[in-house]
């Protein structure tokens, strides 16, 4: 075990945690915004997959990672557009539509991949990193945290931006009102449908980016069903964070670290079944809930379509 605690190993571990955590962070932030506005977005897994495939395909065809990320965001946005139309505009059941979209885009992306690439899984070129001068020279954590693709920094900035928006801006207030007491928001002259639509579309865009990150930075290729439940972990993270973006960051870091540990130990040849390590974050969160279990606050109108004038 001593050999495991070398600087190189720790760097790889932290680096892996960032790589595994960023998709969860992006999708979790999106889900959080959507839930804040009162829309339980179960389609987030489908949005991530759409982003992952779109990002991979564009990056593969144009050999541009940046275009890949734009395509990924658009892919997630496209799925979210469907979700917003069906669940916010028309007020259809969010769980049925969410699961429908997830299943549908699992199928569509798998089918597109099969039609375009058959059984081959072409690799993307390595993603360029942005080296933050000074910080990147810190031993162990420097290369793991400060020599990463630009989008990693953007994701962290996004956490701060979201925190600021939720606490200090009218938009944050509108979002919260749309989820807690939509009728009150309506009375003040703000269109609930518009606020919720904006939240769902933002969630889709972020989930799409997360998916694109998974494909382009995480794996460097696209495999059908590659999100493998990440969207559902994002839902859990968003709910546990109770509306605070920093908690999503913390949660994503913990889950990312455990996922990274799984791979790292396998590489190091330690004979612990990966399943045991994968259980750790969930077991830890359950333990916290059991010990400190109190009312996990959710928006009062979460999941309830808003119909103007209805009682």
């Amino acid at each position, binding site marked *: 075990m001593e050999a495991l605690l070398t600087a190189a190993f720790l760097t790889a571990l932290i680096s892996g945690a960032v790589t595994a955590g960023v998709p969860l962070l992006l999708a979790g932030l999106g889900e959080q915004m959507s839930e804040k506005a009162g829309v339980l977005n179960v389609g987030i897994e489908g949005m991530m997959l759409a982003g992952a495939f779109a990002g991979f395909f564009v990056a593969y065809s144009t050999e541009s990672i940046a275009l890949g990320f734009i395509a990924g965001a658009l892919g997630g946005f496209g799925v979210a557009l469907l979700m917003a139309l069906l669940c916010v505009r028309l007020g259809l*059941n969010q769980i049925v539509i969410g699961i429908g*979209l997830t299943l549908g885009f699992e199928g569509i992306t*798998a089918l597109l991949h099969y039609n375009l690439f058959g059984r081959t899984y072409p690799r993307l070129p390595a993603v360029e990193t942005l080296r933050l001068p000074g910080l990147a020279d810190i031993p162990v954590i420097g290369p793991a945290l400060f020599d990463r693709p630009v989008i990693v920094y953007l994701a962290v900035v996004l956490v701060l931006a979201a925190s600021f928006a939720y606490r200090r801006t009218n938009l944050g207030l509108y979002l919260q009102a749309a989820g807690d007491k939509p009728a009150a928001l309506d009375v003040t002259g703000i269109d609930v449908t518009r606020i919720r639509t904006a939240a769902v579309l933002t969630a889709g865009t972020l989930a799409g980016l997360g998916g694109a990150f998974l494909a382009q930075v995480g794996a460097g290729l696209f495999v059908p069903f590659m999100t493998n439940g990440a969207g559902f972990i994002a839902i859990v993270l968003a709910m546990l964070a109770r509306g605070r973006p920093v908690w999503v960051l913390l949660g994503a870091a913990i889950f990312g670290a455990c996922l990274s540990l799984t791979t790292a130990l396998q590489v190091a040849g330690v004979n612990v079944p990966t399943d045991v390590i994968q*259980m750790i974050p969930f077991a830890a969160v359950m333990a916290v809930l059991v010990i400190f279990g109190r009312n*996990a606050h*959710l928006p*009062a109108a979460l999941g309830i379509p808003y119909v103007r004038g209805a009682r």
Partner: protein
Amino acid sequence: MTDDMQAVSSPQLAKPRFALDAWTSLAVVTLGPILAAFILCALALIVAGYDPIAYYLYVVERGVFSGQGLQQTLTRMAPLLLHAASLIIAFRAGIWNLGGDGQFLLGAVMAAALAPALITVMPDWITLIVCMLVAMLVGAAWTLIPALLRAYQGVNEIITTLMMTFLGTSFANVLVKLIFLDPGTTVPQTRTLPVGDRLPWLYGTTISSGLLIGLAAVIAVHVIMTRTAFGLRLRVVGANAKAALHAGLAVPLLTVVVFALSGALAGLGGAVDILGVFGNVRADWNPAYALAVVPLVFLARFNGYAAIAFVFFYAVLEIGGESAARRIGVPQHFTLILVATMFILLALAEWLDQRRRAKGKG
């Protein structure tokens, strides 16, 4: 008990339908969107370069009209029906048990671990019954933490059941890989229950008698929820937990009971699938039925009989799609797209129907 019982929209109690146009309405609201989904997906197949008519004919022929295919379809229905029963009881009581897959897998693993061992010392039928009971207990036990947290702390059960399902999936793998490993095989899997010792087939067919268990469970749940005082209590809790508390119902206790019943049915589903069909659990096996059954149950409006029809239809598409993937070369994933399109169009049609009625009344 806090008011986040309403945090996610409460399942609606079935609305009375107009008797006269019930059948026309059923045809329009159910068959219309299904047909539309077939047509939409046919267009997608044409674009992808397949012959949609050949594909659909093959799916229907394999799923319904070929003897062997129909038997597979009916066998596949068993675990799906038990999931449906598990979800109907929970959803009607206003509890969002989204952890069915974890409960199912652990039930399956326990049944798979016990059956080959017990069969050597006990008669067949006792073994099968013991295994099913144990699987039900395990499924129920796996809901205990979410149930207690929900009942006494008001912790939202969507989070906790989802987490328990992730935990359960991994834990099932740990059990298969470390504890119940069959030393005789190189692939990590549990010991296999011989075909002759499994749940009996129905009268000269290869349909697992799990089908009967599934049907009985769904019908029993439907009757309990709609025709008994116990069911009424649960529905009151589901419709308005505060009102239920005021009416003197033991809401926390009822919550725990609902969770336990729901988990037990999901666990039984796992046992039935193992004892009837697979005979063992392989590492990383997870059919994830629950995710597909959730929308089916919603579209059936928590009605057991409607759920049976939807489950049959879904099973046909799955079995037919699996065969078509081998024969016609349309990948299995196409079934997912077809089913998703159907979910969305069915929900849309229901919305249109409700709007039409609302206008008719106004």
